[in-house]
């Protein structure tokens, strides 16, 4: 494949670049214009909901990809950032009257700050101990939030609805989630291009050699962990407001964190378009399964079985496998 590009090089590249640019342009216009359907025709409420739910998951998967894909450190506890974002927005809104639409970048920064502190503790070791600490983190956070009466404890906290006509109430959430998803994908794209991203890839290949080569591995890992919390925190802030109700049971079960991981691995971790593809397929499949079997134990089984199948047969995910076989459409090759 490398020889092919060497021979047919520049022309192919520009072709691919142009088709990619057109494709991205169409997607941007389509996503921006989609709510107009609701405004002019109505009846698209369900699809708006699905779309903004999808954007949120794209943001989450792309963010998780920074630590789990680029750096190769699998975190099963990223829903803690989701909860930190959600709850900090809820506190700011319920007690200080700051709308989550204004506060959400701050909530992202708060969860990023927590990420830095947690990362400084848990990333001192390599390999399996980190994974263990992420599970413990979820359980610890759940116990703490369950018993923190200021924010309602295990009963949760209710937020007032957004004061808008009901047919338009989803629009601000739609655009905000779209912006968060775009920001998250762009962050992943930039990290990949920075020297920092190169360092992370070195860490995922061989951490000892990376350290010998002069990469400040611990700082890089911690920064990657914190950065991956940024947009997840923002998504959490708006998601809590969108649901108008937050409880630890919504944010802090192992299954929530498992789904973050599954989406990214399904699409292909370590790639830019992988988390997006993974989120789209996973959300569609999840919607189908929930409609078929209900959101109960079978949902857990389906998540587990899907994860097993992907890990056993496509450990590089859809995008990764296609790319290795040279069959990835140019419009999805964003690396």
């Amino acid at each position, binding site marked *: 494949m490398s020889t092919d590009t060497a021979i047919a090089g520049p022309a192919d590249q520009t072709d691919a670049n142009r088709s990619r640019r057109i494709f991205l342009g169409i997607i941007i216009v389509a996503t921006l214009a989609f709510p107009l359907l609701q405004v002019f025709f109505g009846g698209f409420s369900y699809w708006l909901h699905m779309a903004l739910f999808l954007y949120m998951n794209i943001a989450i998967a792309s963010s998780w990809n920074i630590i789990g894909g680029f750096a190769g450190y699998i975190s099963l506890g990223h829903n803690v950032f989701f909860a930190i974002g959600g709850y900090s927005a809820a506190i700011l809104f319920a007690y200080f009257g700051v709308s989550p639409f204004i506060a959400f970048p701050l909530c992202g920064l708060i969860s990023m700050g927590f990420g830095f502190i947690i990362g400084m503790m848990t990333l001192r070791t390599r390999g399996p*101990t980190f994974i*263990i600490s992420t599970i413990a983190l979820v359980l610890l956070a759940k116990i703490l939030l369950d018993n923190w009466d200021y924010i309602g404890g295990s009963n949760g906290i209710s937020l007032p609805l957004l004061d808008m006509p009901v047919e338009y109430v989803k629009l601000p959430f739609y655009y905000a989630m779209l912006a968060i998803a775009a920001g998250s994908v762009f962050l992943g794209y930039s990290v990949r291009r920075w020297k920092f991203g190169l360092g992370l890839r070195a860490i995922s290949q061989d951490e000892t050699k990376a350290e*010998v080569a002069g990469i400040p591995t611990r700082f890089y890992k911690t920064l990657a962990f914190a950065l991956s919390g940024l947009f997840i925190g923002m998504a959490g802030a708006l998601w809590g407001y969108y649901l108008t109700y937050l409880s630890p049971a919504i944010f802090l079960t192992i299954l929530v964190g*498992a789904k973050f*991981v599954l989406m990214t*691995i399904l699409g292909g971790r370590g790639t830019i378009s992988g988390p997006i593809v993974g989120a789209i397929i996973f959300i569609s499949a999840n919607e189908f399964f929930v409609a078929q079997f209900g959101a109960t134990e079978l949902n857990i089984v389906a998540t587990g079985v899907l994860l097993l199948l992907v890990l056993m047969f496509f450990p590089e995910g859809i995008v990764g496998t296609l790319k290795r076989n040279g069959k990835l459409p140019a419009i999805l090759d964003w690396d």
Partner: protein
Amino acid sequence: MTQAIQILIIGLTLGGVFALMASGLTLIFGVMGIVNLAHAAFMVAAAFISFFAYKGLGLDPIASIVLTMPVMFVVGLVVYRLFFARSIDDPKKRSVLVLVTFAMALVIEGTLGFFFSNIYRSTNPPYAYDAFLMGPFYLPKGQFYATLMSALILGALWAMLRFTRLGYAIRATTHNRTAAEVVGVNVDRVSMFVFGIGMALAGASGSMISFLFSFYPGKHWEWVAILLSLVVLGGMGSLLGALIGALSLSVISAFVNSAYGPTWSPVTFYLALFAILLIRPQGLLGKKPEL
């Protein structure tokens, strides 16, 4: 003072069972380098076997290890063959094996939840509600028998590791996998047996927890985090470390339990985990990582 000794007794007797639970986990990690996140899920599955053996056949939960241990041993061999055998020596695939065990845990949890629903269950043999009285102290019979049984099983495990050829091979593989292979140890076979033994230990632990605690399918996450924290404290892969970690953390959590209530006793384990990571990431008896 009396109260403190009483709490110590409770903590130590629970610690023995925790040591049994953690032994399989640390043994598997030592030989295969895999953190088995499904360990506690298999324990809960075994607890269900004990539960139904008790309800259906009237089999005593402690005696039901004759059922759970062989069954889980065979399950372990099958799981090893299906999921681990081909990936264990490929470093790239090995890094995702921990996610494989995570997925297995989800499947087990969901399947048990689907068939038996997420209600609290426990076997209730008469000794679970009885206690020995010794002067001002009491010793719950259930915990005492469970710890005695755990000590027996752990003793047998130790003797097996110390005196048999298989045990010798297991220790060699734990020490250095490649070198063991070079001197003629069939590392693949050893790994398979170790996974089986680890699962059998999970099976025995399941029988114990079936009457010590009330359990439901989703409860295993709490247990696996507790077990992992004491394994990390002791040093991953070290059996003696797991024993020390189990006894010390279980005593501390018993004190936390009596001072702040049962909600906060699991927090002891999680906070201990973060404290260990800060102070001594390789654990008490763990090998210091290279570099």
